[in-house]
């Protein structure tokens, strides 16, 4: 009652008052968000400002502000070397392979899972094929080492002799094998996981479609081709486009741990992420690696925007934003 009178008296200020009340009323909600937002400020936004160091000659003793400005010099050096080409090529080609083949494999795997009606076995398969996703890349590198170690590995000591190759292959210094090895390891670790994503989408398809098809005499394979596939196409397209948006980023652990950070394999295993990391850890050029990092951030960002724009054009619901 009193409040109403006061509000009426201060008519010009009424909207202001209302806003203030709203802040006061919901201040608990605002306070709740503080820890998370502070974290994002420190963890995400401060480093965004930090990309200016790519335009500086980095000197750790002088600190961030003390280092001198050198403009685009870091970038010039980076793009003059063959490194820039190799790491860009590797990052993009591996990603393209992983996207195209990975989607196909995960889709096929989801279809096969969907054919399995035995609940217990289905659960068993699901848990086992997602297990590799749970293991750290360090452990994966040990598993690969057990297979590929030049002196004691299962490949060199057991498998190759079956085929009459007694000398063995020094896997960790021959770059030509690595596109195969990395691809196999990537799929071993990830196909089960992504097939569960597709499988979840499959479960959402209305059983009536299949029933109608069965009445019309469509075989199971035909049902998959003419019902399952078309219904899942939007999901597949969207996931693919979103991964294209992330094509400038690579699975750092895969490319760093699994080849054991072997310098001899640079040509086929270096990606932008491993390059930046090596620069920071002192086994590369910090200026150039910072430039590579900024190059990745900016091109990556543009690709996300473009990919999302394309998705949005096709179907607004599937777009990220």
């Amino acid at each position, binding site marked *: 009652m009193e409040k109403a009178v006061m509000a009426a008296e201060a008519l010009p200020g009424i909207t202001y008052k209302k806003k203030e009340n709203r802040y006061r009323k919901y201040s608990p909600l605002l306070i709740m968000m503080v820890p998370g937002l502070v974290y994002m400020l420190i963890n995400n936004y401060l480093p965004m400002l930090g990309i200016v160091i790519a335009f500086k000659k980095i000197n750790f003793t002088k600190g961030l502000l003390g280092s001198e400005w050198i403009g685009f010099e870091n970038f010039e050096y980076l793009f003059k070397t063959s490194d820039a080409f190799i790491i860009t090529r590797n990052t993009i080609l591996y990603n393209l392979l992983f996207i195209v083949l990975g989607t196909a494999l995960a889709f096929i795997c989801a279809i096969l899972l969907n054919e399995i009606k035995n609940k217990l076995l289905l659960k068993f398969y699901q848990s086992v094929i997602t297990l590799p996703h749970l293991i750290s890349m360090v452990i994966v590198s040990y598993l690969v080492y057990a297979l590929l170690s030049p002196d004691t590995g299962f490949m060199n000591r057991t498998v190759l002799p079956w085929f009459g190759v007694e000398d063995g292959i020094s896997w960790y210094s021959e770059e030509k094998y690595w596109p195969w090895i990395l691809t196999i390891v990537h799929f071993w670790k990830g196909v089960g996981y992504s097939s*569960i994503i597709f499988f979840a989408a499959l479960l959402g398809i209305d059983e009536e479609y299949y029933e109608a098809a069965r009445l019309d005499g469509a075989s199971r394979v035909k049902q998959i081709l003419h019902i399952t596939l078309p219904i899942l196409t939007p999901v597949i397209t969207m996931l693919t486009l979103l991964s294209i948006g992330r094509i400038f980023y690579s699975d750092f652990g895969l490319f760093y741990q699994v080849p054991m950070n072997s310098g001899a394999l640079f040509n086929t295993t270096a990606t932008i992420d491993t390059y930046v990391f090596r620069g920071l850890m002192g086994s590369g050029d910090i200026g150039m690696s*910072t430039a590579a990092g900024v190059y990745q951030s900016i091109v990556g960002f543009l690709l996300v925007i473009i990919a999302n724009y394309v998705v949005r054009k096709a179907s607004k619901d599937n777009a990220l*934003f």
Partner: protein
Amino acid sequence: MKNESRGLTIFSHIMMFIFALVCIIPFVLLISASLTDQDAIVAQGYSFIPHTFSTAAYEYLYERGTDIVRAYGVTVFVTVVGTAAGVAITALLAYPLSRSVTPHRNLIMFVVFFTMLFHGGLVPSYLVYTQIFDLKNTIWALIIPGLLMNGFYVMMMRTFFQTSIPGALIESAQIDGAGEYRTFWTIVLPLSTPILATIGLFECIMYWNDWQLGMIYITEPQLFSIQNLLNRIMQDIQFITTNMSDNSGDAMQQMPTDAVKMAIAVIGVLPILVAYPFFQKYFVKGIMIGAVKG
């Protein structure tokens, strides 16, 4: 038609069985190799059935186990504290974003969302955490950078709050006189255990498996997590002989090097393999929740 359908089912079983086998087989090799006598490994290499059974590698690790125990301590501490703090701040940020009454909701949504699109990258993050905040060689370096919270989990949780907690419930609680904090604590959180468990599980796995933060920020061996210890040992098996108490040349000679490499990986992965049957249900469900949102 019946036959064709059954054929497909059998085919599916065969394919999934092979796939499951491929997923498990490397672990079998790892465990078998760790239980093989050193001389047999030198003679025949790692194999799926130990030529000469031996637990020497584990005895060796057990005798010199302080580093491993400490590394486990670090990993467990980081996982527990990181997951608890991460889930808490994620929920606290996601809940107000799910309420339409929150002032500046759209702006804050954008602030959260933008972090998913643009990254400063590794070098600037490193500078922030070492030059502004002196995290290098502290346990916090294994908890705070990058892993504590991410935009994707905030979005996932917000979607859950929006779709699974009826607005009417919140309203009626507030009509009954519950404040915002109380509503959140006694009404919203108890109804949100599925999403809290899912995100908690994902964070747990992330912390348990992380080796990158240790590699970037930690140089002191006392602060190594189990993953970093594994990493170090693989890079240089001698690390174990120089850093564990007894440092005589004799010990180096007797060390079952090749089996120890595998044994230590087994020790690193065993807790996950043992715990997996208990949480696999939630893991698979969690992937599906993430997917539906995706």
